[in-house]
């Protein structure tokens, strides 16, 4: 009885291969960023931290990293609030518009980013509200593509939500707002947290849409890396990539830890 795992060997082999395929590029980026040579090559000519240090002094990458971080933070806050509200509507409304709205909310992730980016750019230019090439315009685009993730995760936690818990709170003396903040919100919080992390990661790495909406003086990290790689093949871009990977990994770990703890507390 050597093999006691309930998962068949074939499945484990396939997932092992998939993991290698997914992680290899990440490893290549990290190693390239630690290259001691002058150009972005693989395998690296030697290991050094000079490009990592270069990232901090770079007039392009550090501001781009901070801009992306800020953009992702603001996007996440707006997406989480709007997405949670939308999810509550979609799970509780008996309106016939519900299915149509559900489709519309999900549309931004189904449409190719290029199509959405072009459409938004044309729309912003046409409305003449000054949204084209502005921070609010970019923010609107990012909220559109990140909100579906919040809607999906919050909806999942609302589907098995027992409405009589809210009724119980009301009957015990809670106003609708108190019932929501003291009872509903803490119970669906794991779903909201998961949506938050998705929104942050998607916004931070968003490329196609950003390409249409960003301006030269407002460059998020993915655009900055792309631009820099087109003209100079230097490893600073890969070093910036290391920081992006670290940021995403840390935020995922922290959030999943929080979410899992909550899940554990909730389940028996």
């Amino acid at each position, binding site marked *: 009885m050597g093999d006691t795992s309930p998962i068949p060997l074939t499945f484990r082999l396939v997932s092992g291969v998939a993991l290698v395929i997914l992680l290899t590029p990440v490893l290549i980026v990290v190693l390239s960023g630690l290259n001691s040579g002058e150009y972005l090559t693989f395998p690296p000519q030697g290991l050094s931290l000079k490009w990592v240090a270069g990232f901090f002094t770079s007039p392009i990458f550090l501001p781009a990293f901070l801009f992306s971080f800020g953009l992702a933070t603001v996007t996440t806050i707006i997406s989480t609030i709007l997405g949670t509200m939308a999810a509550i509507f979609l799970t509780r409304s008996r309106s016939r518009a519900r299915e149509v709205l559900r489709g519309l909310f999900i549309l931004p992730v189904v449409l190719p980013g290029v199509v959405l980016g072009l459409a938004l750019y044309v729309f912003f230019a046409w409305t003449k509200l000054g949204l084209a090439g502005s921070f609010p315009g970019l923010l609107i685009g990012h909220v559109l593509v990140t909100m579906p993730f919040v809607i999906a995760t919050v909806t999942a936690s609302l589907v098995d939500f*027992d409405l*009589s*818990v809210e*009724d*119980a*709170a*009301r*009957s*015990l*003396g*809670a*106003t609708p707002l*108190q019932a929501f903040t*003291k*009872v509903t919100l*803490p*119970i669906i919080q794991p779903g909201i947290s998961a949506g938050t992390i998705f929104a942050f990661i998607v916004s931070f790495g968003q490329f196609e849409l950003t390409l249409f909406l960003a301006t030269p003086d407002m460059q998020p990290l993915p655009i900055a890396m792309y631009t820099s790689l087109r003209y100079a093949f230097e490893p600073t871009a890969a070093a910036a990539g290391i920081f992006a990977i670290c940021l995403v990994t840390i935020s995922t770990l922290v959030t999943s830890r929080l979410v899992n703890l909550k899940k554990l*507390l*909730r*389940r*028996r």
Partner: protein
Amino acid sequence: MSDIRLDQLTHSYGETRAVDNVSLSIAEGEFYSLLGPSGCGKSTTLRMIAGFVTPTSGRILIGGGDVTRLPPERRDIGIVFQNYAIFPHMSVAENIAFGLRLRKVPRAEIDTAVEGALAQVGLSGFGDRYQRNLSGGQQQRVALARVLVTKPRILLLDEPLSALDKALREEMKFWIKDLQQTLGITTIYVTHDQDEALTMSDRIGVMRAGRIEQSGTPREIYEEPASLFVTTFIGQSNVLDATYAGAEGPRAAAMVEGRALSAELSHALPRGSAAKLVIRPENVLMGPEAADRNLTQLPATVIGESYQGAMVRYRLRLGSQELVAERQNQAHLARWRPGETVTVGWDPGRARLLPAD
């Protein structure tokens, strides 16, 4: 503690009337059950009283005050749900303290009240537990404690026992009734289980298709059913095709299988109209027991016998109709085999003539 009055309460979902013109008075301290099959409107009635559903028309008065338009949080009503609705993110003590915190009761007072409530429901020392560590019966007690600690004017119970296993259900039935009597709190109990309604209630309202078909004490509901629905929904009844042949003293004469039988009549019927003669299986006597001249007597053939331990159940043929008799399984009582003929009889005061549905 207060009395409850429902005045022509109606709730419509589109075309269908879930609750149809229900008027009801429940006295202070009374244990009133709304009994009926699923979809009869009993839960909607309860949810209207609690304030979760707005009536289409009609009024709800508690302690004389009109609460029809008040939101649930201002009605001062305690409700316990079928699934208990314990807040999963709070400990038992926090659950119980919830209502008091909203009322801005001082911390020390809350702690004392929570301890008292836990003791009252027999869960002292359970304050730090969470819902996931509680059995169904314990959750039930927490839900009651959470409600009672706020000293509500009335208590609403929505099928509180249906999620429990049979043994626990029996135990909780008496426990809840005792608690209700100790507190003297006006209680409305919604159930589809006739046993619960019969054993716990002071009065029962049998609901069907949004209306209260009959409202009365458990004895009245069981022994003096006002309709065919009530008599078949509560316990078992033999329903025989009959024709109303006119009054016969205080009783009615009914033609059943060509014989004139007398029965209690609770509804005025036109002479000659089709009706149903209703008799409970435990009231159908057989053989020597049916020998009394004052009884209604009929010849019947045994077509089936089933042994049920304390009871023996006979299927009998009476002309073209069938009848079920339930006799106690005791040594001095005779037993019959299928195929034998036997005289069956009953006290005419136990038979009722009801309008055909």
